[in-house]
């Protein structure tokens, strides 16, 4: 047999072996990451009595799958309100964040201001001042504004972490927009503001969309602020509502708990997933460029 004929086959065998090893290495991680979600999903569509059959294999259905747990959410709890609250909170947080972080990110990236880098780092550092240190003084702020027990309190508070993050993110983004397009606009008679609005903004929509997505997903990650500031049922955002209203005394509505958690958790996870690289570049951008 000639060497030429052997080479590709042994190469393929080597590739197969390599892939097998990698898949074997990854398998435990995959199970660890995905199993809890599958388990939640199965629980969400199981009948209540099916959940408590200890002798049956729990990974499949003894009784027919059901949408009952979802019905329960919409008919016996304020789940519909929670979804609306979550959407409206995220909308206003995004508006506040874009209106403040966009100009700030632009100014830090483009206008060669004295101390621009220090200011940028300073704003970004506030992202690291955690809610657990701020929630008690902010409780006072919220009650001074007379917003306790209203989801508006969260609209005021969430920008404390979305603005620092998105300013940093947009600063990095604006650095990548070529200078020439602004210069050309100014040669054509636009002022600095005119160039920003007419020329820079239209090419910046990917950055703005990213900032909007993060205003939404970061707001959804919060638990502490909503727990501390909102206790009226129909004012709660979804994570808080599900975690507090579906456990009554010692009774856990496991099916509905999982249904309610996944119904918003999965879309958020998908969105976040799509933008994860931007998140990582956002927080580490300065370190890898």
């Amino acid at each position, binding site marked *: 047999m000639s060497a030429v004929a052997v080479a590709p086959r042994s190469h393929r065998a080597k590739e197969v072996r390599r892939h097998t090893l990698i898949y074997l290495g990854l398998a435990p991680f995959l199970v660890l990451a995905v199993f809890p979600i599958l388990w939640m999903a199965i629980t969400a569509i199981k009948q209540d009595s099916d959940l408590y059959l200890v002798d049956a294999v729990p990974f499949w259905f003894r009784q027919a799958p059901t949408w009952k747990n979802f019905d329960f959410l919409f008919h016996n709890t304020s789940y519909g309100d929670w979804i609306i609250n979550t959407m409206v909170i995220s909308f206003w947080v995004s508006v506040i964040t874009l209106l403040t972080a966009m100009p700030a990110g632009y100014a*830090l990236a483009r206008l060669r201001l004295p101390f621009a880098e220090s200011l940028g780092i300073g704003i970004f550092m506030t992202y690291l001042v955690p809610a657990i240190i701020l929630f008690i003084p*902010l409780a006072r702020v919220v009650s001074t504004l007379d917003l306790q027990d209203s989801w508006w309190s969260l609209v005021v508070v969430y920008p404390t972490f979305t603005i620092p993050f998105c300013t940093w993110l947009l600063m990095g983004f604006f650095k990548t927009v070529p200078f020439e397009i602004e210069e050309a606009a100014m040669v054509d008679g636009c002022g600095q503001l005119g160039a920003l609005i007419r020329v820079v903004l239209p090419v910046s929509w990917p950055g703005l969309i990213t900032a909007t997505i993060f205003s939404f997903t970061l707001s959804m990650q919060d638990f502490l602020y909503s727990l501390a500031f909102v206790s009226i049922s129909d004012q709660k955002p979804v994570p808080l509502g599900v975690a507090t209203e579906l456990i009554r005394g010692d009774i856990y509505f496991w099916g509905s708990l999982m249904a309610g958690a996944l119904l918003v958790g999965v879309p958020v996870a998908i969105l976040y997933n799509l933008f994860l*690289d931007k998140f990582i570049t956002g927080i580490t951008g300065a370190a890898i460029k």
Partner: protein
Amino acid sequence: MTQVSPGGPSPPGSLSIPVGARAWGGGWWRTPTARRYLFGYVLLAPAVLYVALLVGVPFLFSLYLAMSDASVGAPVARFIGLENFSSALENAVFYTAVRNTLVFTIGAGILKGLLGTTLAFLLLQPFKGRKVVRALIVIPFTLPIAVSVLGWKWMFDSQFSVINWALSRLSLIGAYGSPDWPVWLGQPALALFSVMFVNVWRGFPFSAIVLLAGLTSVPPEILDAAKVDGANFLQRFRKVIVPMIAPILFIGTAFDTVFTLSDLSIVYLLTNGGPDGATEILPTLAYNTGIRGGALGRGAAISLFLFPLLLPAMILLLRTLRRRQI
């Protein structure tokens, strides 16, 4: 806002101040540079003010609250000096909380580091289906935390835990009710392990992805050069890869530490500090004292004890970012 100076249109960001403008306008603030600064600081003002008013001021306010007897019921607070801090230090639960916070953060940090490194090196290899695997593996990090903790609460159920079902079928533990049936959230040592495990579960994809971003930023030529020079894998890892990805590692560690130290939701939803204080951490103690118990001053004092723990992470981040900017 026009940029036209006597010498013709001046590009933005040009550092040269047109001489004509200065002599003719009669003040530095009329120069394009000054206008650009003004424009810039006006654009910056809303973000800076928002952050200053709702992060800076509350932070200072929490220092004041911590030295007052403020409570939810009494709007007027008295200054009581360091009494809140000293009464925290006299409380045995406080020491348990500090110990648990440290064990939790350090233990979970080490586990996330180990799992994340292994996973990063696996994901660094080219293989079929890499994108899908990556997207699935980061799910724990992308799911809202309160949502996934509820799933874990169900998996740790005292009677219907799916983990126990599997262990029992594998004959690793006895049947329900037997003495070796683990009650994950009900036995002190197991409870601390369980809350740590959920934190690790949520954080290991983040460690892996950050590390992966660092590893892919190392130019292959440098590794090849090291290989040619006869460096083996461990030497290349220690002498080439680690120094090159150190900044990104520092930043990732700083973020993860801050998130872990300050996260309330895992412990609050799983055990709320129980059984018998076995999982009490500073965040739950601060929340239960300050908001549930209504003693705002005492709660603020307890949460401020987190600050010295957070400080190293923040300094590390600041120094890394600073050094990179220069």
